């Protein structure tokens, strides 16, 4: 034991020193606004403390890992072969149960007595990220094609609706499919130059695509409004009924027609329900696609491209369609986002969004739809819950992410659920 502590201590001391060096700019210096403007001040004791914390923390983690692996080694090995099958069946059953449960919960949530504006608002944000996660999950999770610039499709969807509605006066329901289509087109376009790329190169090019999109939006003043963005985007209507207090021309308002007294909550509920329907529709479509040749080809492509080719699967078509379908879902999410905010600007579409969406997909377990839902809940809600921690919430967030990746390196739901062949469902049930 003494030897292992000594062994780990060296690494931990180095870690602590590195942390102290890093902490100098991040923690050691801070700005205070005084009468003379911003003044930089120092807090060296914090730097020392952060070094000590990293030292102690990493030592604790290393020792804990030793203890755990020692315990694991004592346990009998699981026999391969028989075990996975039962696990699969169990995971499939649990996932299904969870899917039904969370769907019911999501549908009834707006009608619960405790649900207020805040809950509806956060709920809608979660749903947007679920939709984005499902989109990226097609490209990254199913087809295995990395995309670090997914936010581009989100932005393209949002600006498609913003521009179409403010210049041509088209409504949300017309623009929703159009935005998806435009984003899908860009997805197909992006996939062309990267067909031959893999790994690091793919990461860099897709990252570039995300940034290029944002920078074009930022600089094309006449078309996109530049940094000022586009405002006055119309809100979605329900069969021609508006949820605004004073409906725009040509629309009657929901509260007048139904006789329910006006409340902003209704609009939030309505938005929430639209987002929920989009998510449910997307989930259903992806589930179907997975069992069709196109979806099966995506998953096979992730596993072995050479084998795919020899089975007659055209890898080009598969890759293009994976990016297009993923991009389309991103476009839907963007269109909805624009309609919800009534305002878009380039600030909403930074690399941070791409990273968050990718985190959702990876945390959820590549390819798992339920995983995406759980991870989106986690990623959106944790910072909300952590508001009391104020400045520290991002640290808590980071620690939680690391913890998950340490304990479940394959993501929360890393078990792939087999698809059922659509055309023979009847035959198999019999």
């Amino acid at each position, binding site marked *: 034991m003494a030897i292992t502590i000594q062994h780990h201590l060296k690494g931990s001391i180095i870690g602590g020193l590195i942390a102290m060096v890093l902490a100098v700019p991040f923690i050691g210096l801070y700005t205070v606004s005084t009468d003379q403007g911003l003044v930089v001040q120092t807090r060296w004791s914090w730097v020392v403390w952060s070094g000590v914390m990293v030292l102690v923390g990493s030592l604790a983690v290393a020792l804990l890992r030793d203890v755990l692996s020692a315990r694991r080694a004592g346990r009998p090995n699981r026999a391969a072969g028989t075990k996975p099958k039962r696990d699969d069946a169990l995971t499939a059953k649990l996932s299904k149960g969870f899917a039904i449960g969370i769907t019911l919960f999501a549908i009834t949530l707006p009608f619960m007595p405790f649900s207020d504006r805040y809950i509806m608002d956060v709920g809608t944000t979660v749903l947007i990220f679920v939709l984005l996660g499902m989109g990226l999950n097609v490209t990254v999770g199913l087809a295995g094609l990395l995309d670090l610039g997914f936010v581009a499709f989100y932005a393209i969807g949002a600006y498609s609706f913003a521009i179409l509605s403010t210049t041509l006066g088209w409504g949300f329901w017309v623009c929703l499919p159009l935005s998806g289509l435009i984003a899908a087109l860009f997805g197909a376009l992006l996939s062309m130059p990267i067909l031959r790329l893999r790994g690091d190169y793919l990461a860099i090019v897709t990252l570039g695509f995300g940034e290029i999109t944002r920078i074009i939006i930022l600089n094309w003043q006449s078309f996109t409004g530049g940094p000022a963005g586009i405002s006055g985007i119309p809100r979605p209507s329900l069969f021609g009924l508006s949820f605004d207090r004073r409906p725009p021309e040509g629309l009657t308002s929901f509260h007048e027609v139904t006789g329910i007294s006006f409340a902003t909550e209704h609009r939030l509920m309505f938005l929430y329900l639209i987002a929920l329907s989009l998510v449910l529709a997307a989930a259903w479509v992806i589930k179907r696609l997975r069992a069709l040749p196109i979806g099966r080809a995506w998953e096979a492509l992730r596993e072995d491209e050479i084998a795919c080719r020899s089975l007659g699967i055209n890898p080009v078509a598969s890759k293009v369609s994976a990016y297009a379908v993923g991009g389309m879902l991103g476009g839907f999410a963007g269109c909805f986002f624009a309609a919800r905010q009534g305002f878009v600007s380039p600030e909403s579409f930074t690399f941070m969004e791409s990273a968050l969406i990718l985190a959702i997909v990876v945390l959820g377990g590549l390819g798992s739809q339920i995983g995406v839902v759980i991870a989106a809940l986690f990623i959106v809600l944790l910072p909300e819950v952590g508001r009391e921690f104020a400045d520290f919430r991002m640290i808590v967030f980071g620690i939680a992410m690391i913890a998950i990746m340490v304990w479940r390196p394959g993501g929360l739901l890393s078990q792939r659920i*087999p698809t059922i062949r659509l055309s023979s469902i009847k035959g198999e049930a019999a």
Partner: protein
Amino acid sequence: MSLLQLTGVRTNYGPIEALRGVDIHVNQGEIVTLIGANGAGKSTLLMTICGQPKPASGTILFDGKVINDLPPHETAKLGIAQVPEGRRIFPRMTVFENLQLGATLGNPAHFDEDAAYCLDLFPILAKRRDQRAGTLSGGEQQMLAISRALMSRPRLLLLDEPSLGLAPLIIRLIFEVIADLNKTRGMTILLVEQNAYHALKLAHRAYVLAQGQVVLEGGGAELLANPEVRAAYLEGGSH
């Protein structure tokens, strides 16, 4: 006319000449075996037939049509199915899903019948139907790879070292199945093997490849009796 005919086929990997003018043909209904040392270019030959890499010169005729420039997914559509070296099954998918992917090009109406045929050919696969293919043993994975290739009802089956790393008993089983496919289904097979004894016994005709060229050809039994072949590929070998 032969189903498959290669004339003067050369394939390069950059400066490396892997095939240096290969002439072989495979007739309808034949089992043709290709043997040769490591690095002779056997896998390259099968891959060139499939379309990746493309031949630098020469012609590949399949059913009278030049297929030199077709990519693998197009040659697969013509009915050429390859069981690649190292099996290359889809490990995270179930056995059944692997078969479904094999049927990508097949007629969906035949699926149930073909799946039943394969699971009957290798009963162990039926037991493992819903198990992840990656958890199968090496022999089972090879059976799956062959089954998967059969699902599209190919006209020509290319097998790259199906006995690689398998126990003698399983090798026997695999070779029995290959012979059986040829006899009962009339399947045309081009078989690449290190296991020269079994492969030559099975073959109607055979070629010996060395350094990217055909150095010997003849009937299976004929090559089996050939002293040069015996010396190079059989003596002290495992048979």
